[in-house]
């Protein structure tokens, strides 16, 4: 379970990749823990870039639920962006869009979360 992390101005973007099945859900939880701890403490918005996620199981969704609770408890925002069609279907079946803000792309998430982060994203894309 790979999970790269980058900072765009005042937003953290974490990008897990691959299949978040039961064994990988624990790896995702471990990978996200320091990111979450830091983002929640600083009330920094967190975007989960899911463009590389091919599947997510119930345990993976539980990891996202715990992350959302931790962020909200500190008054920080968390969003998921760029779901692959199959993962979006799983979100729908699980009624998970009630839990997390979902955006069609990382750019659209940043547009909603932070103007400086959007500028940094657009600059990096040039």
């Amino acid at each position, binding site marked *: 379970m790979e999970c790269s992390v980058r900072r765009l101005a005042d937003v953290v973007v974490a990008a897990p990749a691959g299949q978040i099945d039961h064994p990988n859900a624990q790896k995702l939880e471990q990978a996200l823990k320091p990111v979450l701890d830091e983002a929640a403490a600083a009330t920094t918005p967190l975007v989960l870039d899911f463009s590389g996620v091919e599947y997510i199981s*119930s345990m993976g969704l*539980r990891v996202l639920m715990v992350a959302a609770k931790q962020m909200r408890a500190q008054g920080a925002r968390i969003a998921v962006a760029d779901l692959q069609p199959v993962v979006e279907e799983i979100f729908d079946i699980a009624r998970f869009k009630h839990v997390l803000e979902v955006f069609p792309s990382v750019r659209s998430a940043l547009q909603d979360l932070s103007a400086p982060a959007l500028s940094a994203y657009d600059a990096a894309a040039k």
Partner: protein
Amino acid sequence: MKRVRFWGTRGSLPVALTAEAVRKKVIASLRSAAGRSFASDAEIEAYVDTLGMPVSGTYGGHSPCVEIETGGSEYVLCDVGTGVRPFGQRAMARHGPASPQTYHIFMSHVHWDHIMGFPFFTPAYIKGNRIRIYGGHAVLEEAFRRQQAAPSFPVDFSSLGASIEFVRLEAGRTHDVAGLQVDLMLQEHSGDSYGYRFSSDGKTVIYTTDSEHKLNDLAETKRFVDFFRDADLVIFDAMYSLTDTISIRADWGHSSNIVGVELCHMAGARELCLFHHEPVSSDETITRLLTEARRYEEISRTGKPLRVSAAYDGMEIAL
């Protein structure tokens, strides 16, 4: 084991179709038939069969009661929600009052929706019948007696004519009852519940209702996967959405269609039957949950296909 027959499939509270819901079904049926004519009743029935459950049928509203047809002369039931009332009526119609029968009843737990049909179970009133009620709870007998005690019910349990025995079962060992090998397992639910594994003639049925699955507990998941291993049928509590079970309804003691699919896949089970439907769910809602469970089964499948069904009152599954 030959067959499983569902007499009650609704969780928490029995429900009935409203006049408005029936009217909607009739309207949808007539709308769909626009321009058609039918030369016979057979043609009408064939047309109705094309309409699908939400229009031509209903999942029903009785609380849990499931019959396992063993192929023997004695009856086997799981839970005695209100579904046991029509079961008892059919048994009476079949045997009459003068032909004593034996009924084996396995209790998941003694919450009201799972015992409330028993005071209306006609065979319990008839001398000569033998009823054995099995379960893992120490309070099994107390719960049955208490619900019929004054002022809650006009006929006290002690007035029932049948010979009624309570049998405490121990989890972790196999019990032989009515030609079945029966194992039970403790489940996560308020006041505890027990899941059952019934095996005979090379067939295995799992009855697991009112059971919450903590997704982060891998040892617990393995325990359930081992219990469900290679089952022909898993009757599974799918009352809520996954999101509900890990958020606003966490610790309510129920599960979801998604977790049912995952556990059955891991166990190599052949059929998952969604059960213990939420009382507020309409026929359309339950059908959608079934469709979504089937789709999730396709998405998450890594081995052999898993058949997915949704239980309705009157449904039969041949083993």
